[in-house]
């Protein structure tokens, strides 16, 4: 049985949970999911529509606010009770904070940031990026279970999750949590305008190159980015010219990204740029030059004038 640890904040489910359930379902092994928190009945019933054997709810006042110690305690007890073979989680800021501690507490392996999982019986093979996505590694867990794995956001699609033919049963599990053992004392989260954009967290990116011709045309790329729910980025010459800040630069002297979708507008595909985005799941290239090296690594290519093609794409997206 695979236990999927759901993630919620203030009663709202993180969609990455659905991706993780999809990943678990892809193995063919029976799946259960667990929600932790305080007053999370709504989240649990939402999850019940998934094709899972059961939705387990662990509620405790000590879990109202996320803390690493609280979650580790609760999950350690739950895993002891449920005895899953595998434990899957989405790879989020939060799971990065507690999952390694949980696995280490149980002296079990945790394979993080997986982009694929293969097999339906042991040894299950996990695929994860290494060297910032320039290479991939196939990994197997060793020793007794449960084995833990976190999945990269976007590696699986939330809409690939199978819905159940009927609502799954929701069960409350009681675990005993010793609040005095929770060493972290969190304060309320707050929002702040971030200093620099972290493009490596973006699911979709629209990047511009010299083909955009002028700073005034960035607006067009920005519109496409908006229509796609993407972040705007650029190749080096654009940032060198000051048209976009340096933290938007993709490439060997900028950031390395591997988003679900990368749209390269007017980018020729110099190797310095390619090494920064080759690992993207789907690459679209639009360029006037049919010989541009970018087409060699693109999944979809359009040879054409981006000033005509991009407005057409925006129109199509908005339909």
């Amino acid at each position, binding site marked *: 049985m695979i236990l999927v640890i759901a993630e919620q904040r203030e009663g709202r489910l993180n969609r990455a949970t659905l991706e993780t359930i999809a990943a678990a379902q892809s193995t063919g092994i029976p799946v259960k999911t667990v929600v932790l928190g305080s007053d999370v009945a709504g989240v649990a019933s939402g999850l019940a529509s998934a094709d899972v054997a059961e939705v387990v709810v662990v509620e405790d006042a000590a879990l109202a606010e996320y803390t690493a110690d609280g979650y580790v305690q609760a999950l350690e007890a739950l895993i002891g009770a449920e005895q899953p073979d595998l434990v899957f989680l989405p790879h989020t800021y939060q799971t990065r904070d507690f999952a390694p501690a949980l696995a280490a507490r149980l002296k079990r392996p945790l394979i993080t940031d997986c982009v694929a999982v293969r097999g339906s019986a042991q040894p299950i093979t996990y695929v994860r990026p290494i060297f910032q996505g320039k290479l991939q590694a196939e990994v197997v867990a060793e020793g007794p279970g449960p084995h833990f794995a976190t999945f990269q956001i976007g590696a699986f699609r939330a809409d690939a999750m199978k819905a159940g033919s009927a609502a799954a049963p929701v069960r409350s599990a009681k675990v005993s949590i010793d609040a005095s053992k929770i060493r972290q004392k969190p304060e309320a989260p707050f929002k702040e305008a971030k200093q620099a954009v972290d493009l490596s967290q973006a699911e979709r990116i629209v990047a511009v190159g010299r083909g955009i011709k002028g700073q005034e045309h960035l607006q067009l790329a920005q519109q496409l980015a908006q229509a796609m729910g993407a972040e705007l980025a650029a190749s080096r010459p654009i940032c*060198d010219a000051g048209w976009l800040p*340096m933290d938007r630069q993709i490439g*060997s*002297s900028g950031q390395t990204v591997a988003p679900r979708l990368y749209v390269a507008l007017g980018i020729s595909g*110099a*190797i*310095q740029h390619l*090494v920064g985005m080759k690992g993207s799941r789907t690459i679209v290239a639009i360029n006037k030059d049919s010989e541009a*090296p970018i087409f060699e690594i693109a999944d979809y290519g359009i040879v054409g004038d981006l000033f005509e093609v991009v407005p057409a794409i925006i129109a199509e997206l908005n339909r």
Partner: protein
Amino acid sequence: MDRESLEVDVLIVGGGPAGMAAALRLAQLQKEKGGEPLAIAVLEKAREAGAHMLSGAVLDPSALRDLVPDFKEKGAPLATEVHRDAVYFLTRGRKFKFPITPPPFANHGNYVISLNRFVKWLGGLVEAEGIDIFTGFSATDILFEQQGKDAAVIGIRTGDRGIGRHGEKKSTFEPGVDIRAKVTILCDGVRGNVTKSLVRQLGLDDGRLPQTYAIGIKELWEVPKDRVAPGSVTHTLGYPLKMEEFGGGFIYAMPEGLLSIGFVSGLDYRDPMFDPHVVFQHFKRHPFVASLLEGGQMVRYGAKALPEGGWHTIPRLYSTGVLIAGDAGAFVNSIRLKGIHLAMRTGMLAAETAFDAIRAGDVSAAALKAYEDRINAGPVRRELYPVRNVHQSFGHGMLAGVGYSGLSLVTGGWWLRDPMPAHGGWERMETFAEYYSEGRPDPDAPANPVKIDRQLTFDRLTNVHYSGTRHAEDQPSHLVVHDTDICRTRCREEYGNPCTRFCPANVYEMVDAGDGTRKLQINASNCVHCKTCDIMDPYQIIDWMPPEGGGGPQYEGM
């Protein structure tokens, strides 16, 4: 913030074969002769020893034998002994082998090496002696006592670190360090910025011939292991160069299918549209060369200038408190195409001179002149003097050069006019009007285009990626072009911006200025520190200054 300062007895500027040999020799002398231990420091601008080292290379082990007699036991990384020598004359489609390998090209007893690995190894020996190699520190200014032609060199100031791209001091700003030394040995390589500055200030080249250079562009390839026998050394003349142009190709085979391949072009060509990088691509496409590289993979790229002028271009090598060794002093045998052993030898001689002078308490020019005496009395002069006019003879074309060189083997270099007259290479570049009387070529299009397939041939930008070059981005351009207006107007008109062609790293580009004209864009972070721009610019307005320490290429295996 206070400027750091350090005092040593001997400061060695540059951690290449000359600098490392000097340091090692000083350590040996220390042990031999005993006495008050000398404080010795080596400054190296690269992030680690050997990172900026690039050469063919075939090493004459004579200096190595003297410096480290047990070099084999100490694990000197000599890839292979030379087993086969061949020289070919190439035409566009064919090759003609010289029936006898001309004696200067006979490499029996020599080794094919990677200079990068060799210098790394030397650096290990130097550090084992307890000598500090300060990597990531560039030398920018000379510290003088008194001024004018009798100025005494009392040390070096290193470059500032932590300056932003607009010249502002960042929070991490560290001013350059003043390193005071009794003797400073300059081993800052071909067209070294410190030596260039010293020579200018003290007039050390008065009465000498102007220095001439060549650019060597090299790639490291992995080809099927049994294709070329390791230790096979090949040189070529002819295609793709014209008879009036100096240079040739080289192919050195190392074990495990590693091939060192490159092309040397004299930086004294007349054609303003000449492009050494394009010439190298044509060379690789020659059927003979292409057949060696077929199915292989280019793994590293780099370029560096070489001093070619020979004996008569060597400046005065000493002044109070300072000595010059290695490529910085132009110690290259341009007919044998070897300079590493001479760099090591002069480094050792400089060390011996410095040691004696410091022990005697006299580092005046008169005392340090002993360095030149040592050079004159030994193998350095014996080797370089007979070939003193060779490079200059090529100034009259390839036939003249080959003819004179052949002759010089017998005559010991004699000529009617000695020294054979010569000009600085940049002076020989002709304008469009002079060279292209039949019509102006398009400065933005290659004169001799070659197909770039990114398998066998590459564009500059792709090549630079394989040089491993990295610089801190947030710093001012280290390439100082004193008047960029000349670029847009006079130079474009007269020479068609040759910097966009002679730079092997795509540093210089003429981009659309937005008003119908073009302007110079300097992509400083691509720079591979070859010095060609400083050498070849026809207006001599480019000064290569070291970028923030640690930046530059990463020449693994080169």
